[in-house]
């Protein structure tokens, strides 16, 4: 055993989330055993009782930070990992649970639980990158599992990962979808949303709902204007930008502007 070369050690950590992004690893049915042979899965509680201490070569971090406990824990995770990759909308933008960040105090008081002293939670749900330096953010609600393989492979090879950064529109064109917004007047977040899903929703006849979050050069205010021309009311536009990546700044900003305009 001692003559075996040391395999890179990978750990998977979970914060506030649905488990779906880490499940993507187990959903790599064809490659799972090969991956498990190429790397050492040192910490992945959802899959194994064997939990090895750090340091790790790669920490995959799912979920957002919503408690004091987790705010402390993410610091320890960062110290234990050479490369930290946040995976999914919760980890990269705060997730759907970041909708709480917009609620005013009056709304909060009404939400207080019968025995509030039993529960400890922060007012905000925040992405991993607001707490520690993150080496790569993999978008999506959920992430695309092939992106995860590419990202792990690229990280271990020391090269730049080939993850798309264009908009969903580009994927729609490649898929030869008819543009829903042009042809049917259906509001669609495709023009401002980062590619990665393969233009799934337009292929199923519905507007993109932005689960991969804003693309880097998103012009969200212009799209909001377009939605208005299509007849959408401000609350509808606000809801459109406030879903799984509501706290990503481009979406947050435009949703706040729509509300006050």
């Amino acid at each position, binding site marked *: 055993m001692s003559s075996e070369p040391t395999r890179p050690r990978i750990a998977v950590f979970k914060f506030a989330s649905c488990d779906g992004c880490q499940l993507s690893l187990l959903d790599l049915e064809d490659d799972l055993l090969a991956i498990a042979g190429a790397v050492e899965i040192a910490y992945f509680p959802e899959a194994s009782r064997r939990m090895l201490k750090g340091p790790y070569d790669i920490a995959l971090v799912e979920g957002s930070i919503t408690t004091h406990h987790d705010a402390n824990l993410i610091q320890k995770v960062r110290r234990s990992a050479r490369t930290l990759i946040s995976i999914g909308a919760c980890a990269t933008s705060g997730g759907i649970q970041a909708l709480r960040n917009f609620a005013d105090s009056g709304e909060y008081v009404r939400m207080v639980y019968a025995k509030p002293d039993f529960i400890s939670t*922060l007012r905000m749900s925040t992405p991993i990158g607001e707490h520690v330096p993150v080496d790569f953010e993999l978008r999506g609600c*959920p992430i695309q599992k092939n992106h995860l393989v590419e990202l792990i492979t690229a990280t271990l090879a020391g090269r730049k990962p080939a993850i798309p950064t264009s908009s969903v529109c580009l994927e729609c064109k490649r898929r030869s979808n008819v543009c829903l917004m042009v042809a049917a007047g259906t509001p669609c977040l495709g023009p401002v949303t980062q590619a990665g899903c393969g233009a799934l929703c337009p292929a199923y006849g519905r507007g993109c709902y932005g689960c991969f979050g804003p693309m880097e050069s998103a012009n969200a205010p212009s799209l909001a204007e377009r939605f208005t021309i299509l007849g959408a009311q401000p609350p509808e536009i606000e809801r459109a930008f406030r879903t799984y990546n509501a706290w990503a700044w481009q979406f947050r900003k435009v949703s706040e502007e729509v509300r006050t305009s």
Partner: protein
Amino acid sequence: MIPTDTAVAKAGVNTIEVPVLARVEGEGALFIKTKGGKLLDLKLKIPEPPRLFEGFLTGRHFMEAPDITARICGICPIAYQMSAVHAMERALGVEIHPQVRALRRLFYCGEWIESHALHVYMLHAPDFLGCQDAIELAGTHKDIVLQALRLKKLGNEIVRVLGGREIHPVSACVGGFYKTPRPEDLAPLAEELKWALDASLATVRLVATFPFPDFEADYEFVSLSHPDEYPLCEGRVVSNRGLDIDPAEFEEHSIEQHVRHSNALHSVLKARGSYHVGPLARFNLNFNKLPEIARQAALEAGLELPVRNPFKSIVVRAVELVFACHEALRVIGEYEPPPKPRVPCEPRASTGMAATEAPRGLLYHRYSIDEGGLITSARIVPPTAQNMKRIEEDLCAYVPDLVDLPNEEIAWKAEQAVRNYDPCISCATHFLKLSIDRG
């Protein structure tokens, strides 16, 4: 997880702590205290942070509910989508096309196959075979793990064909689907399902040979029950102790208790206390609705009704794999595309409740919406919250038989008893309301 041994010598108190429960979905922890061979205290702690879905569903449009609630659980998003669409359709008085109904059963079968294959082989079987995980299992039983992965992949493929992707698929909507498949899209699934049916039968035979602890409990089993079919999306909520209600009456009978050590609520039946949902409950209450091939497999595996040994849930899950493959084949064989993928749904001020059978058991949703179609209140009761009290009671009954074992073994066996329920802790905590810590 290796338990931390903190035996306090002078008091003679032995504390076993499993700070991170493995091979469950979400964050759980186990604390056991024994003294002089007796169980002093036991808690299944749920530190998983609450995500407050009930709060932010308020004010959202009714058509958004299936997509938003799917995000409660990445393992069973279809269960959330199905409970949400049925609750909304009941609120709006919408009737769906029979072929849409059949497609939803197929969609759900895909999730059952994926989820059950994951749990049976990758989360639960390693306990019986003395392994830490499926990867280690692959070292000694590679063909079994490959079979598991192929089954799991097929379940995911059914979901992907109908919904676009495995996790948080995009096609299900109130009134039907955004897009329905062509028969030729489903044909390749049928080929693989024929293999999967055989593989599921082999799974039943395999897991029936596992060594089961001699443990039984006197459960109240609760599940849906439908006059003609093994329950997925519709039926009355029934139990072996006389419960027989429409899902709309669910909240009159099941209430939730808030306990300090858990961020998941504990459900109880008002009249009688804890109850048990999931494969065991479905199987015991609906055995005669299973197809012949599944009933036969169950009997050959030595299952006797009612199954009260929770460790045998792994066999029952395997029997449900047989059912799901058989049912998926039936739906595909009889499929004709509906005239329209969905019926239009006009909002009106109303309330609707529905329950469907998630892989882990009964999943209840209630929504009230206003005349503009915005949600004014929402309530979600996931299966794991309903099982939570029952899991603790199982542990309290089971652990006293183990106290003479080394701590590591007690911990492992107790963990296994928790995994009998395939608990989804992510689900169970996500409907809690919020308290603010402004520190």
